[in-house]
């Protein structure tokens, strides 16, 4: 017992002395200003891996990185733990990336880590979901939470002729963006569509199957339901399947945030009236271009326009680079998109 212990101790000391040595070697290229021609390393952080939305974003990001000749690292939490994002950012700090592009699950939570990155000379841009303003240089704004919430509610109201009952399927009760979108949906309803009533909010734990079960229960509980609104991309197809199985195609409308590919079939069947989203690949593409430009000093605060490769010019409002308005995919245009 004692012997093992002293052995362990000796080896621990050996390891740590080794690690101190390596600490003395300069780490990363971010302490000295990077020459313009140098290949940049960009850390691209989605909210979660294995989510079609972010897979699509990363696809655009990779295309941009290839064009620019940068190295792209995509990593994100695989389990639904908000602390994992911080861990990845901090790993990247020691790894020595040049720029971090992050979609933030927890505004306050991740900002501490991002500020730390900035203190080490790493540039930070955010996309999809913002951090606190002092923790990043620019936010690539695909649409504000307000914009999304309002757009969803407006579309819902249009389909229901501004009166009737509807229900909301949310990804989870706790996730930050879901909370924000639900808030703005409600705000818009209260302000503009007082004839409409939200009967219930159910969580589907980001599982399509659960969204279907919940919708089935909603449909039989509230016979007057006219519309299901999903604030998560997994909710729309699940809800659509439930509506179809209940034989209420067209009677109960179905809209939400979602990717075209997952919803094409239902849109054509007339179960889903439309899904709202921006062009996710463009979001990733623009983000990487912005990140690259920030790191090279080409994009500074105060700029009014930004040119991103083949996509052309984008407007900058303050420190938000605007991707444009959310796009509604419906029966007429959905086949033109493949993501």
């Amino acid at each position, binding site marked *: 017992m004692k012997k093992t212990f002293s052995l362990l101790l000796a080896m621990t000391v050996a390891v740590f002395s080794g690690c101190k040595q390596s600490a003395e070697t300069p780490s990363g290229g971010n302490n000295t200003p990077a020459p313009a021609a140098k290949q940049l390393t960009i850390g691209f952080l989605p909210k979660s891996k294995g989510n079609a939305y972010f897979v699509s974003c990363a696809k655009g990001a990779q295309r941009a990185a290839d064009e620019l000749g940068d190295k792209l690292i995509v990593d994100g939490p*695989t389990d639904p733990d908000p602390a994992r994002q911080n861990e990845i950012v901090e790993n990247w700090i020691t790894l020595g990336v040049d720029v971090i592009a992050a979609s933030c699950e927890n505004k306050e939570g991740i900002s501490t880590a991002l500020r730390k990155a900035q203190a080490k000379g790493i540039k930070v841009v955010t996309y999809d979901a913002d951090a606190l303003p002092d923790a990043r240089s620019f936010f690539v704004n695909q649409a504000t939470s307000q914009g999304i919430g309002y757009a969803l509610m407006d579309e819902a109201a249009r389909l229901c002729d501004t009166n009737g009952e509807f229900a909301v399927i949310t990804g989870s009760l706790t996730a930050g963006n879901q909370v924000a979108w639900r808030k703005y949906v409600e705000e818009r309803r209260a302000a503009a569509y007082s004839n409409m009533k939200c009967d219930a909010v159910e969580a589907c734990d980001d599982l399509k199957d659960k969204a279907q079960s919940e919708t089935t229960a909603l449909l039989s509980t509230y016979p007057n339901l006219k519309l299901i609104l999903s604030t998560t991309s997994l909710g729309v197809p699940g809800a659509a399947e439930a509506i179809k199985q209940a034989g209420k195609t067209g009677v109960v409308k179905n809209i939400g945030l979602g990717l075209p590919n997952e919803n094409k079939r239902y849109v054509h069947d007339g179960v889903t009236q439309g899904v709202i989203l921006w062009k996710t690949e463009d979001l990733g593409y623009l983000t990487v271009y912005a990140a690259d430009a920030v790191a090279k000093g080409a994009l500074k605060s105060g700029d009014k326009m930004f040119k991103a490769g083949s996509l052309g010019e984008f407007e900058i409002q303050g420190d938000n680079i605007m991707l444009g308005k959310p796009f509604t995919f419906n029966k007429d245009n959905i086949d033109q998109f493949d993501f």
Partner: protein
Amino acid sequence: MNTDKHGLKKNLLRHETILFVVLVAEWLFFDVIGHNFGTYDNTCDILRHYCEIGLLALAMTPIILTGGIDLSVASLLGLCAILFGKFWRDAGMPIPLAAACTIGVGALAGGLNATLISWLRLPPLIVTLGTYSLFRGLAEAITHGVDTFTDFPNSFLFLGQERWLGIPAQAFVFIIATIFFWLLVHRTTFGRSFRAIGFSPEGAHYAGIPLGRRVAMVYVLAGVVSAIAAIIYTARLGQAKADAGTGYELFAITAVVLGGTSIFGGVGSIHGTLLGVAAIAVLHSGIAHAVLPGEMAGMLTGLLLILALAGSILPKMISGLRARKSAPRLAKQIP
């Protein structure tokens, strides 16, 4: 007696020794293929990131030593985190008072597990499966899933984000907890009782060991430690939310079992658990620094777990052929 030679050989084949070699190998491997992996900064980061899981694993060790299990620790972490936020923001308590109250709640929640397990003699797996849902559900119900607690004072955030004397502040809590649990398990009669209960609850009862109290103690301790982990978690992230620590219970159990503690109870050590946590933490951090796909960390952890188990079984199978019980018996499921 020539126990010396025998003893040395035995020590070399000890689970902890092998695991330590694996850990060093991991470290060296990632130091070579990863960028800036073996730096002091990164070592500190690993300490910070795995502090909560480490704490939960420490508390889990005596539980598994008694032959039990606690699936509810991570849910309790979530509940404690938001209660801490509530105490501070809504009840207006100063941070230290809020922390004390949170720890009190942790002890109470651990007490609920303890009561059901030791007083009603219910299987720990099921009781804590129930409280796993219950605690997380309460956390969501209290905040409606929406409420988030932020804007904690910097003096508090220091605990989770800054270094003191060159070491991450929460590492001090972890070191104290490690010393506490090491002494408890290896140097006190309590630890002795845990083992006896793990090997044979009835035998321990007949030997006059206060079975109920000892078993209750480990679950209450786990509750307290979960609360402390919740506070550190809040300080590290700067926010408290109902989903804090989701999935940490599996991390903690994996670390403990990887560290050589038998899931059937009786066998195991705190230093083993420490090595188990370190092996998992280094793996995750190393994969990230070597820019390998993050999923590999999970897969390798699973693989390591199976290898560690098989490795600990093989010498036993060989010597088992010599010892009295010949065929390897079917492992019994935890009580």
